[in-house]
């Protein structure tokens, strides 16, 4: 107390202060949970933290990670996938593609029920497929579907307009949740249906509590059709808006899972935490690629030699090994590394400043007395600094060595950037685009001439147009022979890489972090965007 005046008698307030101090001590009582060994391995709660705020929980009319994670817990799908891209039975105990590729027959399990107790039948499957075809943002995914026939309650025959091999991946948990027809088929507009916020599915967990912007709770569904699953009693997903807070939370054990960690520094911090396991498995299906895109209709970038010159000067190795500390795999083409269709034999554009200079000379951009050849702008998606801004800043200094002056144009927020890029108001931009499994779903959109559409973000904003590529993509989409299909996609990748509408940089280093003591982590190609019915605690944490 700085009050050293003896005339000051603060006895009354001292007592009050003591009371306040005592009250604070009670408040400060440590609320962290302590682990205590228990015999059972079933049960327990998993607390997850994410910054991804879902618009709602219905993946049939909404794609993206934020909705996919809860949607795949609440709704089951015809198929699910393992770590090696093999389809596995889920609601469909078996499936058969007709020899001509014009239909796919699903035999459904007979014991699946929705959370309200009503059985899952072929009617629900037919209704869901047609609903997704009409409403899902990825229209190429089911555009080939003509109708779904239901000869009996447990058989659904998907009739196609033309062969559509991508259908098998489209039947994954995230893009094909099976909705209850008796709830969603009431004539209300599906995108604004009240059930999107109070969903009823047949998946391993029921949504029991939702506080918008705060958290949602998923509880074990006792009548889930796979015996003995799910293992957990409850999954609580907290919306945590700040990554530092999320880091501190998993370090303390307040949180047991951190999905979609993308920052290299965050990944390194998590690797050092003794109570945490971290894995980059679980994103091969998503296939997120970070790349540098060119506006191929704008001078001087309409000249393929200029684009190649930039590629030869950019130095992908430095970006992946130094900027991303070796956490990100190199991406060399339009199909993400880890996909069975990825073609590794393409031009790698290894750093070659001499070659870059020759190409620019040939294109008619000689060195000026000050050493420069041209000036361009580069944009990036705001918010994802390590993947976007840092790479753009690095390219500014790196391309200077090739005589290319880049001016970095910062956008204040995502819509501003999206507006610029989708209205073709840019020279170069960093960008991140997802493959979403089959090329027909997530790759074609970037290269098809027919998808050059002003005002649409993540369409063909490079305005790249090559008739040969269009032809290959359309043919490969319908090719029933897997070998022939792979060969077509290989050729497509080689052409795109040498035309260089895009300089491919890296696979986005998405990681999932978990508390130690959890087993059967979701490491399949869809990772956290598939049912978490196997993950379990080795010993139950005391709640």
């Amino acid at each position, binding site marked *: 107390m*700085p*009050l050293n*005046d003896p*005339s*000051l*008698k*603060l006895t009354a*307030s001292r007592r009050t202060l003591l009371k306040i101090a005592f009250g604070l001590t*009670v*408040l*400060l*009582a*440590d*609320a*962290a*949970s302590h682990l205590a060994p228990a015999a059972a391995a079933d049960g327990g*709660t998993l607390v997850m*933290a994410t910054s991804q705020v879902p*618009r*709602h929980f219905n993946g049939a009319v*909404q*794609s*993206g990670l934020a909705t996919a994670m809860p949607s795949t817990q609440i709704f089951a799908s015809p198929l699910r996938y393992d770590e090696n891209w093999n389809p596995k039975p889920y609601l469909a105990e078996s499936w058969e593609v007709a020899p001509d590729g014009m239909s796919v027959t699903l035999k459904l399990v007979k014991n699946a029920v929705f959370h309200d107790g009503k059985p899952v039948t072929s009617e629900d499957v037919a209704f869901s497929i047609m609903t997704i075809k009409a409403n899902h*943002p*990825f229209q*190429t995914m089911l555009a080939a579907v003509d109708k779904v026939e239901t000869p009996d309650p447990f058989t659904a025959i998907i009739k196609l307009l033309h062969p559509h091999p991508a259908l098998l991946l489209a039947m994954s948990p995230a893009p094909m949740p099976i909705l209850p027809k008796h709830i969603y088929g009431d004539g209300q507009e599906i995108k*604004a249906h009240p059930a999107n*916020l109070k969903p009823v599915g047949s998946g391993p967990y029921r949504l029991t509590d939702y*506080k*918008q*912007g*705060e*958290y949602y*709770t998923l509880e074990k569904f006792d009548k889930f059709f796979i015996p003995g699953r799910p293992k957990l009693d409850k999954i*609580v997903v*907290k*919306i*945590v*808006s*700040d990554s*530092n*807070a*999320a880091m*501190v*939370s998993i*370090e303390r054990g*307040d949180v047991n899972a951190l999905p979609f960690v993308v920052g290299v520094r965050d990944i390194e911090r998590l690797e050092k935490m003794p109570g945490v396991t971290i894995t980059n498995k679980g994103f091969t299906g998503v296939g997120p690629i970070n790349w540098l895109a060119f506006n191929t209709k704008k001078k001087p970038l309409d000249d393929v030699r200029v684009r190649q010159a930039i590629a030869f000067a950019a130095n992908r190795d430095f970006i992946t090994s130094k900027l991303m500390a070796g956490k990100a795999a190199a991406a060399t083409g339009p199909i993400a590394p880890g996909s069975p269709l990825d073609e590794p034999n393409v031009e790698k554009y290894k750093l070659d400043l001499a070659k870059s200079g020759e190409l620019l000379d040939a294109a008619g951009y000689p060195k000026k007395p000050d050493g420069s050849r041209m000036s361009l702008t580069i944009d990036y998606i705001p918010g994802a600094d390590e993947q976007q801004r840092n790479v753009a800043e690095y390219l500014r200094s790196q391309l200077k060595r090739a005589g290319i002056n880049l001016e970095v144009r910062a956008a204040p*927020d*995502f*819509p*501003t950037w*999206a*507006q610029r890029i989708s209205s073709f108001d840019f020279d170069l931009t960093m960008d991140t*685009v*997802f493959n979403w499994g089959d090329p027909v779903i997530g790759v074609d959109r970037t290269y098809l001439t027919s998808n050059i559409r002003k*005002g*649409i973000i*993540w*369409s063909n904003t490079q305005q790249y147009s090559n008739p040969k590529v269009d032809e290959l993509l359309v043919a490969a989409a319908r090719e029933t022979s897997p070998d022939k299909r792979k060969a077509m996609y290989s050729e497509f990748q080689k052409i795109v890489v040498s035309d260089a509408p895009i300089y491919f940089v890296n696979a986005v280093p998405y990681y999932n972090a978990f508390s130690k003591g959890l087993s059967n982590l979701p490491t399949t190609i869809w990772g956290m965007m598939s049912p978490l019915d196997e993950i379990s605690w080795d010993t139950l944490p005391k*709640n």
Partner: protein
Amino acid sequence: MNLLIHMTRQLANAVGLLLAVLVLNFCLIHLAPGDPALVIAGEMGGASADVIAALRVKYGLDQSLFHQLWTYLAKVVTGDFGYSYYFNEPVVNLIAHRIPATLYLVISALLLSVVVGTLLGVISARRPNGWFSQSVTVISLTGYAAPVFWTGLLLLLLFGSVWPILPVTGMSDVARPKAGFAHLLDVGQHLILPSITLALVFIAQYSRLARVNMIDALTADYVRTARAKGLPEYVVIGKHALRNTLIPIVTVAGLQFGHLFAGAVLVETVFSWPGMGRLVFESILRRDYPTLLAVLFFSAVLVMAANIITDLVYRLVDPRIRSGAR
């Protein structure tokens, strides 16, 4: 009677001001590049042209700006604030869910900063050039000058990681929900760090204000009289001098409400506090026009209510204003 006329005038002003808030914010947010359809497409990881075009028609974004504003105002007058583009929920529901969280945060930060600031200022005033007074000045000005999110992060790392004794995210322990008194205690715990972070910004102002006014009061005749009567020091300060010191503090506190809301945006983001501040911030990023406009509208209502109440209290406390003798 005089008071009634005054209040009527105040209310009329408030209504005009709220209309201005709506129109101005509407124009501002529409000046920002991009639109909600782009954002929703972005959040989906891309969408086809038809989907985006349909969204734009659905939200009336294909109409002229003036037409959009007119439609919006016509609805608001009937009390219909529309649906959030992003969440497809009535905006009023979203806000109703968020208002309590923000009020807990803002009011506890306000009380904390007024009480602590006044206390520090009063103690400083006794020896204006002493070491205590000097260090209060330095520390409180540091708190005032440091960016709020930085202070927040520092506290978060300190009490979340170095001494993990306080919760650092959200408003309650969502993994182990509690009820009744335990729940209140839980919320109280979660409130400690965010409210301290927000209060630190304002403590400086109140301690300066209290110090200056206290120094004035201590040299006033009535204090000298009180001392001459042999009253104990804490009565002199607490009863006589403090009253006149509190009047300007109450005024400033009422006017600070708007600033507190602004500070809350950052504090809520750092501590994942589910309040309106974060909703404002996220609505801007999402170009969720109806949500943003409604949140700003209701924030303005709260700020104005605070100002009107301050004004009233002030008139009741200070007889000079009541009689209109200025």
